[in-house]
């Protein structure tokens, strides 16, 4: 998994930037704080906060009760990131902070300026240390740790059940008194939705009961499978197509063991892709938000959204481009600095050119303007 490193005025800003880079939701990410921001005089920033982040490996961590507790108590969605580094013990900031510092320090050492390859292998260790420091000592040292887990389960279950049932019921009830546009969307939904309706209620029944039984039991059981996630995402996207008044087929393809892709196929779907894939990106973000709402807790693997094969085309275009550049660099003997790219795109370029003789690649610059450099051998 690729780590990205970002900076910001505060740790939160830097984390936001990292999530943007990775294009994932906050609870899919794993963070390390490399440097906290330093304030200078008069609130001027002396040093930006620096964090590293990556897509969290799929192995679950015992964070679910905390998040559910929060949700049940009605706090805003904003809190969940804090849980990554600080919330193991909200009442006491110090131990959490030192855990962060420990993780940050060990990672910081490994990742001295710009040496990506080194930085990449080391932080994994840093993360382990951080989580060990962050979770384990606290649960043993604080009696509230176990307490919290136990007491949260009844409320958490309620909260979960509610959020499953609410969207379904209410959208039907509320649609009635809306204008023609709303009615149209509903009709469309009904038209195409009978079968999905059934599978949705089944899905929510399943997840509700599973969260009933697994609260406080092993975490792996409360992790939503890729199939469950795909089902909800498909349904959301189908509804979106209907609201757009577009025709399209929604299906899910398994990419590898831990990745599935929900695809919308059809004509005239360019609207859902947008310039440079911006709309697609937004649709993906919203799918994740909906998923989080409907299936609180941990999610197994990764689920991507694609429209009309855009991602694959983008990758192919990038591959061709990289090969052209490699050819130029090899014949001219001069290095070439590419446009800034997001980490996923850079990885494609690195991977492709790794296979090409006569050139090597490296990256330079800071996110979000980090770019690939293609160098001739010798």
């Amino acid at each position, binding site marked *: 998994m690729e780590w990205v490193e970002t900076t910001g005025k505060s740790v*939160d*800003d830097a984390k*936001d930037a990292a*999530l943007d880079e990775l294009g994932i939701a*906050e609870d899919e990410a794993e963070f390390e704080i490399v440097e906290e921001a330093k304030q200078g005089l008069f609130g001027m920033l002396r040093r930006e906060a620096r964090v590293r982040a990556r897509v969290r490996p799929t192995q679950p961590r015992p964070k679910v009760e905390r998040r559910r507790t929060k949700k049940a108590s*009605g*706090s*805003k*969605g*904003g809190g969940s*990131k804090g849980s990554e580094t600080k919330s193991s013990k909200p009442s006491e900031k110090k131990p959490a902070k030192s855990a962060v510092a420990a993780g940050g320090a060990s990672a910081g050492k490994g990742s001295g300026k710009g040496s990506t390859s080194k930085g990449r292998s080391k932080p994994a260790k840093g993360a382990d240390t951080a989580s060990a420091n962050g979770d384990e000592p606290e649960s043993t040292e604080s009696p509230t740790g176990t307490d919290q887990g136990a007491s949260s389960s009844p409320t958490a279950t309620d909260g979960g059940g*509610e*959020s499953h049932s*609410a*969207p379904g019921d*209410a*959208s039907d*009830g*509320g649609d009635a008194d*809306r*204008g*023609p*546009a*709303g009615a*149209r*969307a509903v009709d469309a939904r009904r038209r195409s939705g009978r079968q999905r309706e059934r599978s949705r209620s089944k899905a929510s029944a399943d997840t509700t009961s599973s969260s009933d039984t697994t609260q406080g039991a092993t975490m792996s059981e409360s992790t939503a499978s890729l199939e469950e996630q795909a089902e909800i995402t498909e349904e*959301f996207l189908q*509804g*979106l197509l*209907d*609201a*757009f*008044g577009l025709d399209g087929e929604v299906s899910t393809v398994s990419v590898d063991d831990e990745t599935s892709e929900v695809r919308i196929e059809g004509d005239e779907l360019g*609207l*859902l892709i*947008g310039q440079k894939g*911006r*709309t697609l*990106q*937004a*649709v993906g*973000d*919203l799918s994740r*938000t*909906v998923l989080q*709402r409907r299936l609180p807790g941990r999610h197994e693997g990764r689920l991507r959204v694609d429209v009309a094969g855009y991602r694959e085309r983008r990758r192919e275009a990038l591959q061709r481009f990289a090969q052209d550049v490699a050819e130029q660099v090899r014949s001219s003997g001069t290095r070439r600095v590419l446009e800034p790219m997001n980490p996923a795109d850079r990885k494609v370029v690195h991977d492709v050119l790794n296979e090409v003789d006569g050139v090597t690649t490296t990256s330079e610059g800071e996110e979000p303007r980090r770019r690939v450099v293609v160098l001739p051998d010798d």
Partner: protein
Amino acid sequence: MSDGDPNALAAPTAEAVLDYLVRSIVDDPDAVSVEVEDGRRTTLNVRVAPGDMGRVIGRSGRVASAIRVVTRAAAARDDVEVDIEFLD
């Protein structure tokens, strides 16, 4: 505030998409309403339950900006440009 005639919706697709997106995200979909306000630009005013405002905005406005991007794409089908305001 609005003189929007329900029979002459300025941006029916954008409105339907916005309504759908917001309802998919909130805890209280019954409290969601979208109102079209015609001005120099068409404005879609979204109201949600106060407790749902945070969800709709998201951290650092992430969810809100994604909703805006997708709703504006929908507005292209209506041949209009829209602004989206979230009110509680």
